[in-house]
Structure formats: structure tokens, C-alpha cells
């Protein structure tokens, strides 16, 4: 069994309440940080732990914090990214629902290290329950002086505001999140300037994912050395993997980085449901597909990248052999079409074209030249947009062309799925 870092306390009855959390060493990590470390030392400590961001990019957390100017002459902010919307991903929701105080403790540790007195938790609007739980948790933490003014008798103060979004995938992109939090449409911004220098209200801003911050209390309690002993050489620690799709036991499983997809799917997930394994999307809908040939690839940032995909949000989506890959691509790209914010033409128009062409194929009116047309549209999106959403829309198609070209060919030449006659899980 893998060592549990983030979800260790999750099964304790009443752990979402502050009393139970405190009884189980809750806020000990914050106390240790405040008592034993200066902010600069704390940043070095988190760097030494090897913790990398769990939102998708895997950027080293301590390093990110160190980019924030020490005395900018204006306020500094923390924005907690809880706009979890990447298809396949539902770990942050569990962390907010079951362990809200672990997140708040992580927020306080981060803010002490970076010298921040105002934090915002941007939670997607659909997570109404999570919003209510966090509001209550913040109130409890303020009452006990883990948040608020002069925390635990120090001169460190921190105000935390829980902010509800209103339904827009794009706001999970950090610069769009800032636009949204400023009361604008969630349009991404061109970088530089990076948020560390000019973020919320043009002030220095740290943006961290819920899971990243939720890891900090355990690192403080058990030590950076202990944390960095977990995982692989470059991907330290554990991560919560969301296993969904055609598996017998879907669920959120915390595993040490370096565990293989085979372990996750077979040991944790009880194997593939309803057929044989056909494809795996290893890092949320934005990640390129892999196949059963990749079952022994480790679920860490480097190994997945070397296999031609990305670890992304840690969402592992399993697809069985009764599923049509062209229809799968259509479903994925309907998502990106719907969620394109419309700012950049290649993404706004390109995703629509991808959906139109794929729909035509699925409806039996595909033409041989559609395959080159799909490739051409993908190539015109790739690299030509402000944010990664456009590129993400091409991932499924480009990888499907690589591994399952015959499925597109079949549609283009025969007007039906290569699986025609076989029973499908998802009817369309």
C-alpha cells in the first residue's frame, strides 16, 4: 500500500470539523512553520521537499513562491485554484469536501512564507456544497485564530475569502482566473508579465492548486526530507489520481509518483470494465491518448511526457475496445468547443470546425479528404492561441491519428464506425 500524504486523514469521522482536525494534529504544521522558520527559510524548505504543482503544469512550488518580489510596495495575493473542471478530474472536490481545514492550513503556510495577507479561494460555481463547507471552515479557523488577525500570537495576519465562479472551464487557466476574480469575463492574458509580478489587481500573486496546498501541512509535520523520499527522482511525493471511465472500481486513489498505470487500473481499479483495454487518457481531457502498450508507464511527470502524453491534472480515463475512437474525439472536442472563451480566433473557430467535421464523419457523411482537413485545422490551432485550451482540443485527435488511424479511414471511406455491428457502451 502506498504511503498516504494528502488523504491520510480523509476517512476520519467528522474530520471536516475543526475540533476533529485539531485532534488529529491539524494546524500543527502551521504552528511549526510560524515558530521554527522565517518566511525565507520556509520557501527553501518547500523547495527542498521537491513539491511540484498539482494543477497540471507540475511547476516546483517553492520556486514559484520565490519569484514573488519581497517588498513590492503593494499588496500580495494568493489565489487558490479550485476551479476543477478538466474532464476526468474530481480530486479537489473531495479535498474541499472532506478536508477543508487541511487546505486552509496549507493556505496559511503558503501565505506566511510569501508574505501574503489576503487569499482568495476561487471555487467553481457548480461546487455549491464545497463553497458552503469552506465558508464554515474559514469561520471556524478564524474563531480559533488559525486565520484572521495576529495568527497564534504572531504578527502574521491573513484574511481568506471564498469566491464562487459561475461556470466556465477557462477560469481554471490561471490568468483567466485572475480576470474572472476581477469581475471580468474569464479571458486569458498574455504572459509575461507573470502573475508572480503582476497578477490580481496588477499586484504580485501566487496561484496554487488545492492539492498542492493541501500537501503542505503533512510536509511541515513530517519533514521535507521524508516527503522527498517518496516518489521518483524528479517527481517527488504522492498524488491523487482520479480513475474514471471503463474500470470496475473508479475512484480517487493516492499513489506514490512512479506507480504504473497498470497498478492503478488493475490493482486499484479492479481492471477494465466491459471489454479489453483500448486507450488511456492519462492526464485529463487535454492529454494525448495512450494505449495498452503503455500500461507499464509510470504515472509521473517525466515518464508520461516521455511516452508522448502529459500527467496534467492526474485524471486517468480508461476506454475499452467497444468504444469508437472517432466518437470519443467528438465528445472531447465538443467540450473544448463549448468551453473555448472565444478570445483567440484559431481556438474559437478551430474547435467548431473540428466538431463539425467529426460530426459529419460520425453521421456517415465523411469524405476521404476530411482526414487531412482535420490535421490541417489542428495544425492551425496549435501554438496560435493565448492559452493552452486550443492546443488541448487537438491532443485527442492527433494522438488518435497516431494510434487508431484505421478508425478515421473507415469512417471516411465507409461512412460508419469500424466497430459497426459490435455493441457499444456509449451509444451515439
Amino acid at each position, binding site marked *: 500500500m502506498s504511503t498516504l500524504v494528502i488523504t491520510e486523514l480523509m476517512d476520519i469521522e467528522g474530520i471536516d470539523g475543526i475540533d476533529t482536525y485539531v485532534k488529529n494534529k491539524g494546524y500543527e504544521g502551521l504552528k511549526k512553520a510560524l515558530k521554527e522558520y522565517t518566511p525565507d527559510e520556509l520557501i527553501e524548505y518547500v523547495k527542498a521537499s521537491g513539491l511540484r504543482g498539482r494543477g497540471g503544469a507540475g511547476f516546483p512550488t517553492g520556486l514559484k513562491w520565490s519569484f514573488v518580489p519581497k517588498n513590492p510596495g503593494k499588496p500580495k495575493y494568493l489565489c487558490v485554484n479550485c476551479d476543477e473542471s478538466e474532464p476526468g478530474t474530481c480530486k479537489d472536490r473531495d479535498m474541499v469536501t472532506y478536508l477543508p481545514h487541511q487546505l486552509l492550513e496549507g493556505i496559511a503556510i503558503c501565505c506566511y512564507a510569501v508574505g501574503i495577507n489576503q487569499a482568495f479561494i476561487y471555487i467553481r460555481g*457548480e461546487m455549491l456544497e464545497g463553497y458552503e463547507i469552506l465558508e464554515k471552515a474559514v469561520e471556524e479557523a478564524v474563531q480559533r485564530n488559525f486565520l484572521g488577525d495576529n495568527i497564534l500570537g504572531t504578527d502574521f495576519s491573513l484574511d481568506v475569502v471564498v*469566491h464562487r465562479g459561475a461556470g*466556465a472551464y477557462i477560469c481554471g487557466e490561471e490568468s483567466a482566473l485572475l480576470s474572472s476574480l*476581477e*469581475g471580468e469575463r*474569464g479571458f486569458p492574458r498574455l504572459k509575461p508579465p507573470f502573475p508572480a509580478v503582476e497578477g490580481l489587481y496588477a499586484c504580485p500573486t501566487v496561484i496554487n492548486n488545492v492539492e498542492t496546498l493541501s500537501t503542505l501541512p503533512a510536509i511541515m509535520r513530517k519533514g521535507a526530507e521524508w516527503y522527498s523520499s517518496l516518489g521518483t527522482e524528479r517527481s517527488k511525493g504522492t498524488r491523487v489520481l*482520479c480513475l474514471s*471511465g471503463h474500470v470496475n472500481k473508479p475512484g480517487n486513489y493516492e499513489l506514490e509518483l512512479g506507480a504504473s498505470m497498470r497498478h492503478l487500473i488493475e490493482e486499484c481499479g479492479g481492471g477494465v470494465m466491459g471489454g479489453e483495454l483500448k486507450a488511456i487518457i492519462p492526464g485529463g481531457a487535454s492529454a494525448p491518448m495512450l494505449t495498452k502498450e503503455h500500461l507499464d508507464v509510470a504515472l509521473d511527470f517525466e515518464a508520461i511526457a516521455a511516452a508522448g502524453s502529459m500527467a496534467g491534472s492526474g485524471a486517468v480515463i480508461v476506454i475499452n475496445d467497444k468504444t469508437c475512437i472517432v466518437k470519443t474525439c467528438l465528445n472531447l472536442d465538443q467540450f473544448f468547443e463549448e468551453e473555448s*472563451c472565444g478570445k483567440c480566433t484559431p481556438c474559437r473557430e478551430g474547435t467548431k470546425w473540428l466538431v463539425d467535421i467529426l460530426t459529419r464523419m460520425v453521421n456517415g457523411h465523411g469524405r476521404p479528404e476530411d482526414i487531412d482537413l482535420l490535421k490541417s485545422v489542428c495544425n492551425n490551432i496549435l501554438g496560435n492561441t493565448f492559452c493552452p485550451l486550443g492546443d488541448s482540443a487537438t491532443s485527442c485527435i492527433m494522438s488518435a491519428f497516431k494510434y487508431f488511424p484505421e478508425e478515421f479511414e473507415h469512417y471516411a471511406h465507409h461512412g460508419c464506425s469500424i466497430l459497426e455491428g459490435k455493441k457499444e457502451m456509449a451509444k451515439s
Partner: protein
Amino acid sequence: MSDATAKGLLTEETKTRIRELMAKYPKARSAILPALHVVQEQLGWVPEEAQDEVAQMFEMTPAEVRSLVTFYYMYHRKPVGKYVLKVCRSISCWLRRSEDVEHNLCEHLGIECGETTEDGMFTVVHGECIAACVNAPAIQVNDRFLLDVDPDNVSEIIDRLKAGDPRYPAAVESWKRPEESKGE
């Protein structure tokens, strides 16, 4: 219409809550999305007249508020039923038959996706990934989760909602159209 506008749709309570939200942020405008949620809580949807009142409170133009209400999916721009059933259609739910969930719900209720039943009870809409992928297929009813839905037994959901089953999400009490609140 003119009467309703003159009187305003937003209650004093709603306005007070919005002012409290504005005070929480370094810049009041940051409270605009939460404020529109408060409006929707009161009215069930966000009519243009209400958008205009919000615009005034935030010292924004009505067009600026429109641009937000049309950008973010959660704001209803027309009246909806007491129960809004949002069916997730994204990949993890799709792989586990979300299309059947949507189809069977609509068929049972006798409406198309996006429509409201004639009695004003139910609206079915589709949603993109609602972060319940390991409990697919999932739906939301008035922003509360119903997980591991059985696509072949969606009528039970409707029955339980109609019966006011306390384990199921509660109804949002009916909104009033501006013309209906006239003269009150």
C-alpha cells in the same frame, strides 16, 4: 413592465447581501459574479431588469453585466423549473452512458434538453464536466450532486424529487416573472 422596473425586482435583503459581498474585496467589482448568484437565488433566474439593477449597484453599464451573464453558463437568462437537472455529458460520464441518462430523463418528462416542463417543475440541461467523474454518470439538481445515476431508472429520481424526499435536493421556489410581480 414600467411599474416593475420602477419598483425594482431585487429585495432589500438581496441588496444588503450584495453590499456585504462588495465589502469583502479590495475592489467591489470582484463581487459581481457572487452578486449575480444572489440575484438568481432570489428570482430563480437573472432577468435583464435585475441585471440593470445590479449594474447600477456596481456602477457598471448594463452591457458590461450582460457580457458576464452571457459568458458564464450558470446564470439562467430565462425562467427555469423548480428543479434544474444538469446532465454531465463530458468524457467520463459519456463513457458510462450519460447520453442515455439525458435521453431517458427528457423522454420521461416529455421535453427536449434545454426545455422546462409545462407545470414549471423540471428543466433539463446538459452540462460540461461537473467534477464527479469517479461517480459517473452524474447529474446535478439545483447545483447539488446526484452520483452513480442508473440510466435505466431515471424515473425514480423524478418521483423522489416530486415527493420531496429529504435525501434529495430541495426545490427552488418559483420565481415570478416581472409582469406577475406587477401590482403587488
